[in-house]
């Protein structure tokens, strides 16, 4: 069943087109990776899917309804976004940040109730963030902070989670930790995940489908085995590469072609 649809979306800020006729479907329960070089329109696409930017042509729809007809609050109850990193000021604790995820479900004057605190406890347990719940976010490591931001997104109880390079500032162990967490949420909770990433190999290992963007248009789309070919990657990134297969999963892995 289709949850989200990008229907012939074209977008530009003031200059040239950033996205051109981008169409794809996000099926419920899928794990999709969006790949592409810098400036290929990945982050812009996420903002259109979240209703923050308005495309000049085409539209993003959720359950067949245009995102732009929904209020910010309606969108936030369905779609949660995980940013690259936390950029706020003031020393909010991890728990306070996760509690903010309940905001789209609360009335203007309301304080968080019992159910909100239960939800927050549950998602903090899921993301393994309980042990530093009362510590200020600025005193956490990058990986810990990222898990808190995922917990905040989960607290929104969304149907779709959008991630904008969630592992950009993390080392390989923390990158894998985050991807494992997303995969288990996807498998066990049925959460639909759409992640923009620069890491083509992690995307290949974790995603069901990959959308490869080039210059604002879709170059290739499909399962990793179909999209992650040396031909596609060389065409899009302009870099000679060699490919192999992951020993355990058989999924394609791509490495730059360098001479010894």
């Amino acid at each position: 069943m289709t949850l989200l649809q990008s229907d012939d979306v074209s977008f530009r800020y003031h200059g040239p087109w950033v996205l051109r006729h981008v169409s794809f479907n996000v099926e419920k329960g899928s794990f999709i990776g969006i790949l592409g070089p810098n400036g290929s329109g990945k982050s812009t696409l996420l903002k259109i899917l979240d209703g923050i930017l308005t495309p000049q042509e085409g539209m993003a729809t959720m359950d067949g309804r245009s995102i732009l007809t929904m209020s910010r609050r309606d969108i936030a109850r369905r779609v949660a976004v995980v940013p690259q990193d936390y950029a706020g000021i003031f020393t909010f604790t991890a728990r306070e940040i996760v509690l903010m995820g309940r905001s789209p479900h609360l009335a203007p004057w309301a304080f968080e109730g019992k159910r909100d605190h239960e939800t927050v406890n549950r998602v903090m347990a899921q993301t393994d963030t309980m042990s530093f719940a009362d510590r200020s976010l600025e005193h956490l490591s990058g990986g810990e902070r990222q898990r808190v931001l995922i917990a905040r997104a989960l607290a929104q109880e969304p149907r779709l989670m959008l991630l904008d390079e969630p592992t950009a500032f993390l080392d390989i162990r923390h990158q894998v930790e985050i991807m494992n967490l997303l995969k288990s949420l996807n498998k066990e909770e049925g959460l639909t995940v759409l992640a923009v990433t620069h890491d083509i190999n992690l995307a290949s290992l974790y995603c069901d489908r990959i959308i490869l963007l080039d210059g604002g248009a879709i170059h290739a789309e499909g399962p990793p085995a179909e999209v992650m070919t040396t031909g596609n990657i060389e065409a899009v990134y302009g870099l000679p590469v060699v490919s192999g297969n992951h020993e355990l999963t058989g999924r394609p892995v791509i490495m730059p072609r360098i001479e010894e």
Partner: protein
Amino acid sequence: MSFLSSWSIQPVTPGRVFKICLLLLLLFFTVAVVSLFAGAADITLVTAIRDLLPLEADSHKALTPSERSILFSIRLPRVVLAGLVGAALSMSGVVFQALLRNPLADPYILGISAGSAVGAVTGILLGAEIIILGIPGMAFLGAILAALVVFGIAGTGRRLETSTLLLTGVMVNAFFSAVILFVFSISDHLQLQRAIYWTMGDLSLADDQAIIYTGFFLFIGMAFIYRYARNLNILATGEETALQLGIPVGKTKILLLTAASLVTAAAVAATGTIGFVGLIIPHILRLTVGPDHRILLPAAIICGGAFLVFADTMARCLVSPAELPVGVITALCGAPYFLALLRRRLST
């Protein structure tokens, strides 16, 4: 410090907000009572209570008419106005800091107080006093103008860097100071004497009218801003995050900006520009009650009031029987505090 930090991480509930407010109100009333009985005329609390209680008939222990007049017609209105103005400046400081995502954003430093002063002074020159709320209305126009400049520079989405904030504030202040000097130079002597108060921050002009309109706008602004207390928490973590968490950021920012400017303008129209209240009080409170605006806003309102009552008591008593403008006291405390804060921010 561990006591303070464990106090501030408890979950925010209406009960906790109520308890903290009650505690701080106690502090406020203590400061207010001390202020009422401090000063050149030696009136004690005991005689005042005796005077108010109808039980004792021995009239020689009660207040003399002149003492009664000092207490209830001079000191009491002054304490009330100081409380209202301090509360107003402290609250708008909290709002500006969250919206600009910079803890140094204070209405005085940003130039919003100076904008209000220009509005008020121009109002006096044009004779806007004959219209109801003419002066605070003009102050509001000036405040909005200054706020638009500051928020225009800050742009949308980004947080206002400290250096940009300070430079913008310096320029906005320089411009409005020049306008005020210009207005002074073309006004006649009588108007000049009245107008000069707006630039010094002075509570000695406390009259019923100023108390009524400052109180009125403070309560309107307070009710209005508190509705967005939870949204202010989220806005402080970033504008894009706020959109993603369901807040219509553009609309909310305009509403909060207008409310905070209105409250600042009412305070400035009543007493002139008093600096640093909106900087010191929110900063100290974030360290004690935590950064959640549902507690921070009411705490800043009460403590801002208490601080200005205290500062005005100092202004009355330090060089007694002469008086200092209260702005001198807040600047003497505030400027070093600001510099210490700035140094810490720049070193991290």
